[in-house]
């Protein structure tokens, strides 16, 4: 299988729990990259800390496993120095939008050509099930034993408002759509955000009586709908999937090149 060429087999079986959605995100990402037909040397995967962030250790591209919440800052540095590379930044929901929230909105605002993947299991998996800014009202977590009273961010709306030029959402159930969206996101020139609803059966699942990994994927199947579907009109609570934003906008590295050119005018 060709995707086996893209992993570091020596680290398998991987550390993720049975049925963890992060493994499905890995699976889909490998297939998206396989379809792009790029050489492994053209791809950099940069992550922070979290169960999700372990993904960078498993893929056989250029990889950086950095610090919690700061993957986008490292990625910005790599992209600015070597803009010809395709930089992919998989993050957990806590990683991307709690501690890393400011990096996230400002990377989006600059429209730097990175592919941010938010592996959203609505919980801090790695540290034992604390609530995250994507858990939402009514959710149970180690740090919300009675019930979480914080409302969740909507990743898609947040990314859109912050200026991301490609914004999409899919789930670990909808793997064909997910692969297609990841491929589009990598090809898009500018800041791309792909939110993936992913299951953490171990913490989110247990705490919230959401059942097994299979049950949680059934939930993604039954509680999401394509953007603008008739079902959404009849059932406004359904979560929409698909590409929400895809627009052409000048990209940060190319704007920066223009500044360098201006500054160097008249000098040799």
């Amino acid at each position, binding site marked *: 299988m060709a995707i086996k060429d893209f992993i570091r087999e020596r680290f398998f*079986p991987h550390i*993720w729990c049975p*049925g963890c959605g992060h*493994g499905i995100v890995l*699976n889909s990402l490998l297939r998206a990259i396989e379809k792009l037909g790029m050489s492994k040397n053209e791809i950099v995967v940069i992550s922070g800390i979290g169960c999700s962030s372990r993904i960078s250790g498993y893929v056989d591209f250029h990889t950086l496993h950095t610090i919690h919440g700061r993957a986008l800052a490292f990625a910005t540095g790599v992209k600015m120095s070597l803009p010809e590379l395709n930089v992919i930044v998989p993050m957990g929901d806590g990683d991307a939008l709690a501690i890393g929230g400011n990096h996230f909105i400002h990377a989006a605002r600059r429209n730097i050509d990175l592919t941010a993947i938010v592996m959203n299991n609505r919980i801090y998996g790695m540290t034992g099930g604390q609530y995250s800014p994507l858990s939402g009202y009514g959710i149970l977590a180690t740090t919300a034993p009675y019930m979480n009273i914080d409302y969740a961010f909507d990743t898609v709306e947040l990314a859109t408002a912050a200026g991301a030029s490609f914004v999409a959402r899919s789930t670990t159930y909808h*793997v*064909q759509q997910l*692969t297609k969206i990841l491929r589009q996101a990598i090809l898009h020139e500018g800041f791309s955000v792909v939110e993936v609803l992913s299951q953490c059966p171990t913490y989110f699942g247990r705490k919230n009586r959401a059942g097994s*990994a*299979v049950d949680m994927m059934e939930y993604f199947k039954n509680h999401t709908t394509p953007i603008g579907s008739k079902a959404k009109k009849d059932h406004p609570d359904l979560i929409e999937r698909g590409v929400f934003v895809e627009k052409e906008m000048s990209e940060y590295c190319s704007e920066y090149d223009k500044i360098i050119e201006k500054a160097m005018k008249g000098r040799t």
Partner: protein
Amino acid sequence: MAKPKLKAHVINREWCKGCGICVHFCPKNVLELDDTDKVFAARRSDCICCKMCELRCPDLAIEIETEQDD
């Protein structure tokens, strides 16, 4: 395009964690977990080679080999 013909369900028993995702979502109910919680093709001839098991496996532990693949 000719219908893909199944060669084998290639299962990596070392990597399979028995999560049951492939079993549950197989449209033809081909797969089962054995008593050590590893997947196997119990009704091999019902397989339509849709590869959904392969695409959804979180552990990259199941692969559908068809004659078209080579």
